[in-house]
């Protein structure tokens, strides 16, 4: 940084037509592009629309429960935790996540991850990023981190909106876990964050798949649709008894296992197995994406 400042002083004084220190002698690490990616992603109206839609899911659930409180649903019907909401508003967040994990979260993550490269190609900005130049590896890394950041934001939005609406509409108290133990309100917030972390990790493999699909086409909608369809197919296969041997390798296999974090003591096994599985998907699909993208002719 100090050397920049010196060049700046050296060159601003030598001319009346503002000559600015514009280039450094040695390249920076390249965080600026990551900052730009995150800020462009989260300033986009489409991103906001998706986050708002996700925030609405627990709100709608809470409202539905509140309005039908007089005739409660029989236990066992509806998503897990639903029947507990009337006793304790802190269960709204968990219910919202259970509802969002199979479809709404993969849908929004598929849109963001499928758009990463193909969206730039279709806007014509890919060629300008590459000649700026952003190296192809750096661009892929930045795009992937952006998709992962969206997964985290999306999960947190559901958890936070669920918690707030739960506090607003229902009584709050110590939470009874699946194991029968009871934890305090503060501890329950920690558990909510753990669940959000679990779900974010669960979406890392899907983000990598979306990134790879995105390098295959210049049509973002195609990459988005392929990613979302694959998420649905994976969950269907996970439910076919004939495919038990395959199921531990499906990227959606542990998506609903976050319930294990709601036991006392916490059962970390599924968290670890999920992290390893998602890491493997990330490695494989990031390598495929790089293999495709590094040698691709950019003709968009």
């Amino acid at each position: 940084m100090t050397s920049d400042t010196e060049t700046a002083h050296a060159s601003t004084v030598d001319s009346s037509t503002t000559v600015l220190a514009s280039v450094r002698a040695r390249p920076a690490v390249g965080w600026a592009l990551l900052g730009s990616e995150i800020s462009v992603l989260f300033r986009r109206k489409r991103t906001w629309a998706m986050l708002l839609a996700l925030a609405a899911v627990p709100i709608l659930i809470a409202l539905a429960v509140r309005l039908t409180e007089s005739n409660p649903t029989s236990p066992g019907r509806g998503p897990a935790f639903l029947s507990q909401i009337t006793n304790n508003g802190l269960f709204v967040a968990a219910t919202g996540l259970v509802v969002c994990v199979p479809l709404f979260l993969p849908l929004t993550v598929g849109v963001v991850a499928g758009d990463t490269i193909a969206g730039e190609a279709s806007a014509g900005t890919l060629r300008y990023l590459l000649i700026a130049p952003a190296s192809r590896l750096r661009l892929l890394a930045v795009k992937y981190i952006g998709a992962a950041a969206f997964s985290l934001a999306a999960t947190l939005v559901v958890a936070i909106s669920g918690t707030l609406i739960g506090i607003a509409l229902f009584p709050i108290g110590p939470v009874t876990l699946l194991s029968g133990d009871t934890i305090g309100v503060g501890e329950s917030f920690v558990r909510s964050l753990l669940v959000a972390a679990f779900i974010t990790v669960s979406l890392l493999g899907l983000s990598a798949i979306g990134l790879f699909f995105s390098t295959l086409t210049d049509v973002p909608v195609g990459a988005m649709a392929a990613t979302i369809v694959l998420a649905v197919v994976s969950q269907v296969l996970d439910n076919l008894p004939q495919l038990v041997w395959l199921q531990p390798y499906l990227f959606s296999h542990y998506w609903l296992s976050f319930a294990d974090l709601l036991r006392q003591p916490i059962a970390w096994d599924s968290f670890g197995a999920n992290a390893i599985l998602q890491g493997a998907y990330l490695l494989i699909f990031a390598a495929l994406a790089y293999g495709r993208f590094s040698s691709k002719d950019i003709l968009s």
Partner: protein
Amino acid sequence: MTEAAAWSGLAIETRGLTKRFGRQAAVKDVDLEVPRGAVFGFLGPNGSGKTTTIRMLLGLAAPTSGEARVLGHEMPREGGRVLPRVGALVEGPGFYPYLSGTGNLHRLDSADRYAIGRTRGARVEHALDRVGLGSAATKKVKAYSLGMKQRLGIANALLTPRELLVLDEPTNGLDPQGTREVRSLIRSLAAEGTTVFVSSHLLAEIEQICTHAAIMSAGSLVAQGTLDELREVGRPRVRLLTPDVALAAPVLRTFGMAVESHDSAPEASADGREIIAILGDDSIEPDAVVAALVAAKVRVRGFAVERTSLEDRFVALTGEGFNVDQ
């Protein structure tokens, strides 16, 4: 000859550069030589391979065979080192419609690891002013006109001082004032020492601003050199109007001129006929030719020495046809 000596200090140099799309060769065997400091016009009809060549120069597409050097570095391998010194507009502008002009330039500048972040705002503003977009800087690009987007594309190429500018049809979509501004911008950049490589099919434009040019036709490079060299490949011609064709032809031949046409000249009239002869030798004085014609009792009603225009050369090299060659 060593490898280092083989590659001279040209701004752009290609050898046998070829790109195939399936069976079609979009660019074949192109040997470009763009000297440093030149304003180099890259001419060719639609589909002749200009943009494809530029994509290979910038490392966006890999050549099928052959090699390209930009500022002395091999492309696409050394793109990371060369491209920060190159500003480019490729096949029209490409921007995020939901960001402002300023937002777009910030975004693209942040991708360049050599650009200093601290001066980004000021540099963006300066580049926008240079292309006359200062007042539309905060407008979303989706509300820009075609010409405004084109100007923004040029501004993007000027974010940092560049050694080489590659501009693919920079005046496409610009109004007459915009076209003039771009011409004077190119001139002033060239005066600062920037090499400018500009593709176009507007010959008049190239003739006005370029020092050098190359002509592409159906993927092949058919001519390149300084503008004067290109015009002179066709020798200067003498155009003579006279009723005494039979007398005049032998006189012209004594000067070593090849008499090209007379009988079928469309201008044939009562006044005489037109003879076109190729001036074989630059040292021949036109005055002496006229004096000799008059001495031989040839009635000279018109006499002119013409040089071929770039347009004549262009048409001669790329064909008269309107259809795109494949």
